[in-house]
C-alpha cells in the first residue's frame, strides 16, 4: 500500500522522464524569450528597467512572479500541511505588507528614481557614501534571499528527480545558477520580466487546478476539509488553531511577533521588488501594478490554504515528513495523491506541479540576481567608482560582469549550503530589508530634516543589527535545527531579529540626523518631494 512513502526513492525516479521533459520545455521556452528580449535590449533603461514599457497588468503579474517564491508555494503549503493554522500566518504577513508598498513607497519611488533603490536613497544626499551603503544592503538582502532559493532548489529538484548523490545536488545548483546568469545577462530586465510573467501564470494555473481538485474531493465543503485535515493530522482541533508551531513557550511567541513585524515591514524594502516599479511608464501604472499584485498574490495565498489543508487531509503526516522534514514536498505529493498514486494522472500531475516549482525557483533567482547586479553596476560602479562618469555602455558591461560574479558566488554558496537548514533565510531577508532599507526610504521621502549621516546610520545600523543578531541566534548555532548544530555561540534567543533590529534602524536614522551638524539640502528635498508626488521630470 505504501511503497510511495519516499517520493525521492520510489515514485520520482519512475516519473523522472516526464518531469525532466516538462523542465526542459520550460527552460527552452524561457531561453527563447530571453534571446528575443536580449535582441531588443539596447540602452541602459532597457537592461535595468525593461524599457519602462510594460503595462500595469503585465508588471503586476511579474511582481507576483518575483514575490511568490518556492518558499511561498512549497513552503507555506508544507507548513500548513504539517502545522495547520500556523502555516497560514506567513501568508497573512506577506500579503498585508503590500499595503506599505502601495501607500508609501511604489509611486514616489517610480517618480523619483531611475534604476535602483539607491537612486531614491541618495537623491538628496552625498552620492558616494549613500550609494555605497544602498548597494551594500541591496546585495546583502538579495544574497540572503538568493542563498535560500539556491539551496532550496538543490534539495527540491533533487527530491523531485530522485537524485540522491552529492554530485547530483551540486549539479542542480550549478544548473540553476548558470540558467539565471543566462537569463539576466542576455535578457536583462525585459527578459526577466517575461520569464516572471510566464512563471506567474503557470504557478497560478497549477494552484487553481490543485485547489479545484481538493475542493472537488470534499464537495466544496470547506468545513469537511478542515475537519478531515484536523483528524488526519493526529492533532485534532489544535491543528485549526494558532500555536502548534509558535505557541510552545513565551520565547517562541515573542519570536512570532518578531517574525510578523519583519514580514509586514520587509516587502517594501526588498530591492528586487522595488526595481520592478521602474518597468512601467508612470507612477499611476506602478500603483495599478501593486493593486494587481495584491489581488493575484492574495488569491494565490488563499489557494495555498486549500493545498496545505488538502495535503493534511489526504496524506498521512508521516509520509509528508518522510519525503521532506520541512514539508516542502507536500504540494507535489498532494498532486500525486489527487491524480491517483498508481495512475498515469497522478504521474502527470506530479510532474506538472514539479515543473511549476522549478519554474518558480528559476524566475525568482533571476529577479534577485538582476536586482543585485543592477545595484552593483549603477550604484557602486557608475556612481561611486566612476563618480557618475561611466558611459551607458560601460555601465551595462559592468552589470553583466556583476551578474556572472553574483551567479558564481551564489552557485558556490548554494552548493556549500546544500545540507544546511536555510529555510529561515527568506524571513531573515525580510528582516534585513525592514531594518536597513525601509527606515531610510521612508525618512528620505517624508522627513525634511533627514541627512546623509542619518541615512548612513539607518542603513548600516539596521543592517549590522539584523545580521548580527541572526549570527548569534539559534538560526546559526546551538540547536538541532541550526545551520551549524554542532557548535553553540548563540546568546540572542529569537530566530527573527526584527523586533529589535527594525526599531534600531528607525532610531539610528533619527539619531544620526539630529546628532550631526550637517544641514539638510533643502533645495534637493524640494526637488525630491515635488517629483515624488507629481512625477515632474520622471523618466
Amino acid at each position, binding site marked *: 500500500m505504501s511503497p510511495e512513502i519516499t517520493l525521492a526513492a520510489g515514485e520520482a525516479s519512475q516519473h523522472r522522464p516526464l518531469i525532466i521533459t516538462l523542465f526542459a520545455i520550460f527552460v527552452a521556452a524561457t531561453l527563447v524569450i530571453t534571446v528575443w528580449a536580449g535582441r531588443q535590449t539596447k540602452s541602459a533603461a532597457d537592461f535595468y528597467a525593461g524599457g519602462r514599457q510594460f503595462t500595469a497588468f503585465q508588471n503586476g503579474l511579474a511582481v507576483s512572479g518575483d514575490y511568490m517564491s518556492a518558499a511561498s508555494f512549497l513552503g507555506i503549503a508544507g507548513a500548513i500541511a504539517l502545522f495547520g493554522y500556523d502555516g497560514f500566518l506567513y501568508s*497573512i504577513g506577506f500579503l498585508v505588507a503590500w499595503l506599505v508598498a502601495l501607500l508609501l513607497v511604489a509611486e514616489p519611488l517610480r517618480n523619483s528614481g531611475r534604476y535602483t533603490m539607491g537612486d531614491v536613497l541618495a537623491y538628496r544626499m552625498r552620492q558616494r557614501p549613500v550609494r555605497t551603503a544602498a548597494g551594500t544592503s541591496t546585495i546583502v538582502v538579495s544574497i540572503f534571499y538568493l542563498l535560500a532559493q539556491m539551496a532550496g532548489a538543490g534539495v527540491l529538484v533533487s527530491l523531485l528527480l530522485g537524485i540522491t548523490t552529492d554530485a547530483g545536488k551540486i549539479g542542480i545548483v550549478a544548473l540553476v545558477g548558470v540558467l539565471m546568469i543566462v537569463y539576466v545577462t542576455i535578457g536583462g530586465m525585459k527578459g526577466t520580466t517575461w520569464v516572471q510573467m510566464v512563471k506567474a501564470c503557470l504557478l497560478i494555473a497549477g494552484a487553481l487546478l490543485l485547489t479545484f481538485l481538493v475542493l472537488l474531493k470534499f464537495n466544496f465543503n470547506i468545513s469537511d476539509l478542515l475537519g478531515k485535515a484536523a483528524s488526519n493530522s493526529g492533532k485534532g482541533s489544535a491543528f485549526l488553531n*494558532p500555536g502548534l508551531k509558535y505557541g510552545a513557550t513565551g520565547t517562541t511567541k515573542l519570536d512570532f511577533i518578531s517574525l510578523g513585524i519583519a514580514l*509586514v515591514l520587509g516587502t517594501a524594502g526588498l530591492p528586487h521588488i522595488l526595481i520592478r516599479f521602474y518597468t512601467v511608464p508612470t507612477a*499611476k501604472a506602478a500603483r495599478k501594478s501593486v493593486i494587481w499584485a495584491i489581488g493575484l498574490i492574495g488569491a494565490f495565498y488563499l489557494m495555498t490554504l486549500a493545498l496545505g489543508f488538502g495535503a493534511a487531509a489526504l496524506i498521512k503526516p508521516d509520509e509528508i515528513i518522510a519525503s521532506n522534514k520541512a514539508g516542502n514536498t507536500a504540494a507535489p505529493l498532494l498532486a500525486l495523491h489527487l491524480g491517483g498514486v498508481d495512475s498515469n494522472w497522478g504521474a502527470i500531475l506530479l510532474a506538472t506541479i514539479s515543473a511549476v516549482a522549478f519554474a518558480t525557483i528559476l524566475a525568482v533567482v533571476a529577479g534577485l540576481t538582476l536586482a543585485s547586479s543592477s545595484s552593483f553596476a549603477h550604484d557602486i560602479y557608475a556612481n561611486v567608482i566612476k563618480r557618475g562618469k561611466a*558611459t551607458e555602455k560601460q555601465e551595462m558591461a559592468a552589470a553583466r560582469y556583476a551578474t556572472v560574479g553574483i551567479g558564481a558566488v551564489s552557485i558556490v554558496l548554494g552548493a556549500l549550503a546544500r545540507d544546511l537548514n536555510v529555510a529561515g533565510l527568506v524571513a531573515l531577508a525580510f528582516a534585513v530589508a525592514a531594518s536597513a532599507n525601509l527606515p531610510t526610504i521612508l525618512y528620505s521621502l517624508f522627513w525634511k530634516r533627514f541627512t546623509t549621516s542619518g541615512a548612513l546610520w539607518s542603513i548600516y545600523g539596521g543592517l549590522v543589527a539584523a545580521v548580527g543578531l541572526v549570527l548569534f541566534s539559534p538560526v546559526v548555532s546551538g540547536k538541532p535545527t541550526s545551520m551549524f548544530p554542532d557548535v553553540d555561540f548563540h546568546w540572542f534567543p529569537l530566530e527573527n531579529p526584527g523586533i529589535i533590529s527594525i526599531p534600531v534602524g528607525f532610531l539610528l536614522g533619527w539619531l544620526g540626523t539630529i546628532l550631526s551638524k550637517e544641514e539638510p539640502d533643502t533645495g534637493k528635498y524640494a526637488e525630491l518631494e515635488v517629483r515624488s508626488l*507629481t512625477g515632474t*521630470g520622471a523618466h
Partner: protein
Amino acid sequence: MATETPPPSKAEHQLPSTEEFEQVQESAEFAELRSAHRSFAFPVTVAFIVWYLLYVLLCNYADDFMDTKVVGNINIALVLGLAQFLTTFLIAWWYARYSAAKLDPKGEAIKSRMEGGA
C-alpha cells in the same frame, strides 16, 4: 546616445530649476496635494499595522477566543485570518479610488505646468 549617464539629480530631460521646485513646494496647491496624500496614507498605514498586530497578538495569547467555532469546523481564528485578506483587498481598492479622485488631478496639474513652463 552614450551620454545619458548620471549624476541622476542634475538637470536631465530639462528638469525645472531648483528654485522652481522650491516655489512649487511652498505653493498652496502643492501643500494641498501633500496633505491629501499624507492624510490618507499615514493614518491608514497606522490603522492596518495596528489591526495586523492585534491579530498577531490574538493568535499568541487568546487561544480560547480563537478556538470558538463559528460554523462547523470554521473557527474565529480562520475568520480573522480571512478578514486580514479582506481588509487588505478593501484598502487597496479604496486607495485606488481615492488617489484617482483626489491625488491624480492635483499632481497632473502641477506636473504639466512645471514641464510645460520649463
